[in-house]
């Protein structure tokens, strides 16, 4: 990372859900920085808090969820403290988001042009409608939608899933944001379309200098896309570092298990590795490390809270017993 101020700096973010059964700590002290034009993969299994982290950043956590602590510094401005109107100005303008299910993100009863033009006009009243339409047209072209002029007049149901996700990405790009949070945007798409969208996303970030947070549970997606990777487990980032370093030499036992369970060329015919047990309920996390019940390296020390350590250069890890032997090789 360079010395300049990161575009987005999330520090000790805590988002809790106050349910009838108790407080679910969905995001429990998450920290990461993203520089201009950087792509970070936020990886974790379902319920690890990666989506909630995304929504917490742009202030769209619905009750009973609430951001209860930490900072989200966007170009130095703390978004956790920002008022609703300030957040509205930033959303879709400086910080955009793309959702998981393209079939559900576009309003079925409004034309695509309506949904695009309003995004431009919401942030810049001085733009004329024609200009806004022109920008929408360009954005559709940018994400590879053929004959954008005609497509602007269409309704969402006239698009395929992949095309709808492109429209959603085009909407996110409309105001040339500094950060895009992509919440599993390719999960609902087939592999060919997924490949195309990943390619476009990467290209756009490199060209425009937009920082991208790519939330996914699919390691293969991140492997081909990201610069850095943060692995989340039970509301915490357990390991964070450069993509290749983490994938080649994971040090947190959870990351090791996760990567070990990916089928590869030399595992044909063998049983895949499986992490024993299940994700703990966020309502009753064990004291200390959340992974201790499933960890092969667990001992008494794990009952204390593992702080962030840097057992390897440029790597943030929350573990008392990291796999340093492999990393050192």
């Amino acid at each position, binding site marked *: 990372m360079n010395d300049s101020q990161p575009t987005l700096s999330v520090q000790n973010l805590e988002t809790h859900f106050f349910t009838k059964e108790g407080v679910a700590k969905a995001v429990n002290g998450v920290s990461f920085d993203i520089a201009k034009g950087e792509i970070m993969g936020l990886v974790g299994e379902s319920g690890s808090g990666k989506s909630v982290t995304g929504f917490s950043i742009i202030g769209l956590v619905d009750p009973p969820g609430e951001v209860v602590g930490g900072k989200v510094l966007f170009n130095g401005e703390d978004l956790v403290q920002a008022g609703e109107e300030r957040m509205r100005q930033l*959303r*879709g303008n400086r910080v955009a988001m793309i959702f998981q299910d393209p079939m559900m993100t*576009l*309003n079925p009863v409004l034309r695509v042009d309506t949904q695009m033009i*309003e*995004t431009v006009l919401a942030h810049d009243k001085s733009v004329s409608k024609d200009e806004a339409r022109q920008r929408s047209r360009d954005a559709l072209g940018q994400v590879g939608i053929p004959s954008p002029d005609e497509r602007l007049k269409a309704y969402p149901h006239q698009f395929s899933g992949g095309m709808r996700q492109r429209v*959603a990405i085009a909407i996110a790009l409309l105001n040339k944001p500094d950060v895009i949070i992509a919440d599993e945007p390719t999960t609902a798409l087939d592999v060919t379309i997924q490949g195309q969208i990943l390619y476009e996303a990467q290209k756009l970030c490199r060209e425009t200098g937009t920082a991208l947070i790519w939330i996914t549970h699919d390691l293969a997606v991140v492997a081909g896309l990201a610069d850095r990777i943060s692995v989340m487990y039970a509301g915490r980032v357990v390991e964070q570092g450069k993509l290749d370093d983490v994938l080649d030499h994971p040090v947190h036992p959870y990351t090791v298990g996760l990567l070990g369970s990916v089928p590869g060329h030399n595992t044909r015919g063998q049983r895949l590795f499986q992490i024993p047990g299940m994700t703990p309920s966020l309502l009753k996390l064990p004291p200390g490390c959340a992974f201790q019940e499933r960890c092969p390296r667990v001992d008494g020390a794990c009952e204390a809270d593992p702080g962030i350590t840097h057992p390897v250069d440029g790597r943030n890890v929350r573990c008392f017993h990291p796999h340093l032997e492999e990393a050192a090789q």
Partner: protein
Amino acid sequence: MTVFIIRRLMQSVLVVFVMSFLVFGGVNLVGDPVEMMVSDEADQEERERVIRSMGLDKPWYVQYGLFVANAAQGDLGKSFVYGEQALGIIVQRMPATFELALAALLMAIVIGIPLGVYSGLNSESRFSKVIMAGSILGFSLPTFWVGLMFIMVFAVMLGWLPSTGRGETVELLGINVSFLTTNGLSHLILPAVNLALFKISLVIRLARAGTREIVHMDFIKFARAKGLSTQRVIMVHLMKNIMIPVVTVLGLEFGGLIAFSVVTETVFAWPGMGKLIIDSIQGLDRPVIVAYLMIIVLVFVVINLVVDVLYSILDPRVRIQDVKG
């Protein structure tokens, strides 16, 4: 769209035809109008003269054939009681009922939708619970009782509003209307509110259910993620979606408002079609009953058509299916 409307019109003709048979047959099964028409002292000869004059001596299928043939020329028979064209009598009363029904419909929309959306967005708030309790009352209190209570409170005890009739009317496009004069408007308020109460409750429930469903949809969150103002998210993104079921149900309910404003019109002595039909049923005035029912059938058919067209305007997904079909 044109093909769709033509196809629907052809279906409508069939519906009207079948209904005419049912209505005509049904009315002929109840009571003997001759008993109501001739005096008790009349002799057999006198009775038969009356029967012949009303055409009741012919077999039922001949009567029906004559009825259809005449109806095709716009003649639905003469009222036994008034001796005038049944259609004319009803058309004369129609504006009063339509005015009342439209006023009630307007109230249902203007009051029901905002309250329903508010209650859907803030379902835990105290005011929302008051709205829901109110809508239960609106549903379950009988219209005639509420009408009587209105009269007692607002007309008798407080003396704020008149309780009977239409008041002053002015002519608008050849139709007499009450709502353009202050006096007429004051006459309209109580019966319209009375008639609207049930519909307001219905719209509140529909709008609330729709809001609660739509507000959790991804596209609403996405609209917020685009940085749209709350106002635009609710007024455009949410509203356009919840209007689809509301329009469907209200369209059908509007037919119901016209057809079944009987109770309200009777309580408030509102000179509309509902009052006329009650009088006609009591007097066994067959041509008026038949003509009234036929008009109601037509009203329903037309409203259904309008609702279908509106529906396709609101929901683009319906429009496409139409093109394919």
